[in-house]
């Protein structure tokens, strides 16, 4: 304000505040909508496969994010420390798990339900494998926890290692 020129002061004088401008736009839009009505396609129905697609896309997004994060840790030299290396391994395993889960969902909708016998959710359930790859893949892809658990374990171990190293540093600094 100390060095404000005459032009600046005039500009400030004639500037419409933001809130007022937004209000004006909303008001004009309202008038246009209510005074000039027309056919509107407000809602669109979403069928059953959309949930699965959204879920699969979420898997892809998570996989990409895990890959990016692992890459970032690498290029920023975080992996010199054991803790961060374990965390990076955790992300890579989560990346793998995403691929497994994505593939599992992909295969699951392509096999017929009559290939599985026994009470649903029971311990006596069996799967009939007739030499086709899809059924075999389904069986193994259902064992996704063999990847997910090590992934979360690596994250846990990585954070625990970082905590211990930090504790040593803090104590040394003190």
């Amino acid at each position, binding site marked *: 304000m100390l060095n404000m020129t005459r032009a600046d002061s005039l500009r400030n004088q004639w500037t419409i505040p933001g809130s007022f401008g937004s209000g004006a736009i909303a008001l004009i839009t309202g008038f246009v909508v209510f005074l000039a009505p027309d056919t509107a396609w407000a809602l669109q129905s979403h069928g059953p496969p959309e949930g699965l697609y959204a879920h699969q896309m979420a898997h892809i997004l998570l996989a*990409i994010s895990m890959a990016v994060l692992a890459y970032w840790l690498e290029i920023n030299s975080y992996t010199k420390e054991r803790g961060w290396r374990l965390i990076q391994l955790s992300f890579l395993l989560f990346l793998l798990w995403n691929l497994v889960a994505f593939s599992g969902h992909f295969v699951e909708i392509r096999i017929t339900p009559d290939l599985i016998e026994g009470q*649903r959710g029971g311990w006596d359930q069996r799967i009939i*494998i007739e030499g086709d790859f899809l059924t075999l893949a389904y069986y193994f892809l259902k064992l996704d926890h063999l990847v997910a*658990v090590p992934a979360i374990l690596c994250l846990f171990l990585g954070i625990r290692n970082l*905590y211990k190293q930090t504790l040593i540093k803090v104590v040394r600094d003190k």
Partner: protein
Amino acid sequence: MTGYYSLAPVLFSDVIGSSLMIVISFGAVWYASRLKKAEPSNLMWMYLLVLSAAMAGFSISRSVGHLVKHLLLFTGHSYIWECFRPYTGAINSIAFIGVASVTFFFPKVQRINARILSDKMALEKATQDIKLLNHNLEALVEKRTRQLSLSEKKYRGIFEGSMDMIFVLDDQLSFEDINPSGLATLGYDSPSELVGTVSLAEIFFNTSDYEEFIRDLSVSGSIKDRECRIREKSGLEVLILLSVTGTMSDAVKQKSYVGIAKDVTARIRMERQLQQADRLASLGQTAAGVAHELNTPLGIILGYTQLLLRGCNVQDGSHGDLEIIQKQTKNCKRIVQDLLKFSRDSQTKKSYVDLIECFNEVISLLGHQFEKEGVIVKTSFEPDLPKIFADGEKLEQVLVNLMVNAKQAISGNGTIAVTAKIDQEHQGILISVSDNGCGMSPKTAEKIFDPFFTTKPVGVGTGLGLSVSYGIVQAHGGRIEVESKEGVGTTFTVLLPLPDESEQNVEDMQTQAAKE
């Protein structure tokens, strides 16, 4: 590979895996929170806490869904599961997106953290540098202060301990500081008496000398070894060799002067005494020669005059003439004898004498006469003065001469002070005769011991009294000095040496033998 395969391993891994996922993910959150607590300023730990929390959320959403599914199906509530199933899938999808969103923040967080860490490191480095500088500065200041203190102490020691007078004058040539030796030279007790109150002009004996000094100082900027006559506090004259240098102070941009002065009064006096002694010695030789040459014819004249007087009748006209010749010849003989005494060519009969006894005799003889004329004689003799090996009669003559001179210097009432004490410094007996008479000029004082030099009117004195005293004192291995100030008074000082121990022992033995 064809056949029936149990799905129990799949179910088992699903239940156990889901449970482990929840437990381990919460373990990760717990450690991440501990990590955050251990180092709160590290943004990466905050990120890891958020990430592990997101992972825990993902694990719960997924694993709880799986466990609930198995529980519901196992208990035969498949219809409930069918209702619940879309929700778990949606929640799972949201959890995936949540975790992904958190991971995409990593680069940003990493950059901010890197900035924070670099700033922190820079701050720590700056703090360390400041601490180091501060410590170094403190050490440096301490070292410099110590050096300054030592230097100050050293120069203060030189200043205080110097035997010569050292002083500082301000731009008005008034005393700013002076060392103890300077105070002693000028006769002051403390610097406060002098500093800021007395100027150099006031201590100069002559204004003309001071003006010449200032003129030369302003022309050349400094003066080296100038012989100056200055005045003590008591008014006594002191001869000094004065060196003064003008300096400009950087701090206050003011001119000041540093001076060093050496008291050469004693040296100059000694030189003058030596010159005088040389002069008087050569005069003495001449006087002795003349006296010896005159003594014989005077003796003959006196002898023949006395022979003629014996054979001459009193009524005879020439009798009176012969008596005049005899009287004048005796006068001449006395002068010749005085000259011989002055030239130390007269015989002395030395023995151990008690000075106080000798002096008391003289004082009782003269004191009464002097008191009649308004002159008081004060005595101060140190008790137990040792006997000295001297000619008592001649020392009495010296005291008489000095007291008579003192009396003649006093017009009207006055005081003559006679003192005798042991002077440890010069290993002798110091006798002084002071008067508060008219005093004399330095020029007169220089010639006072010269034979036939007198300030008295013609016929009143021969000018041989002090010369004879000088000769007697010299003959006793002593010395006689005079200090005088016009209008104040005169002090004659006689220093006679103390007897040797060997001489003392011999005398004691002789005394003992005489008693036996």
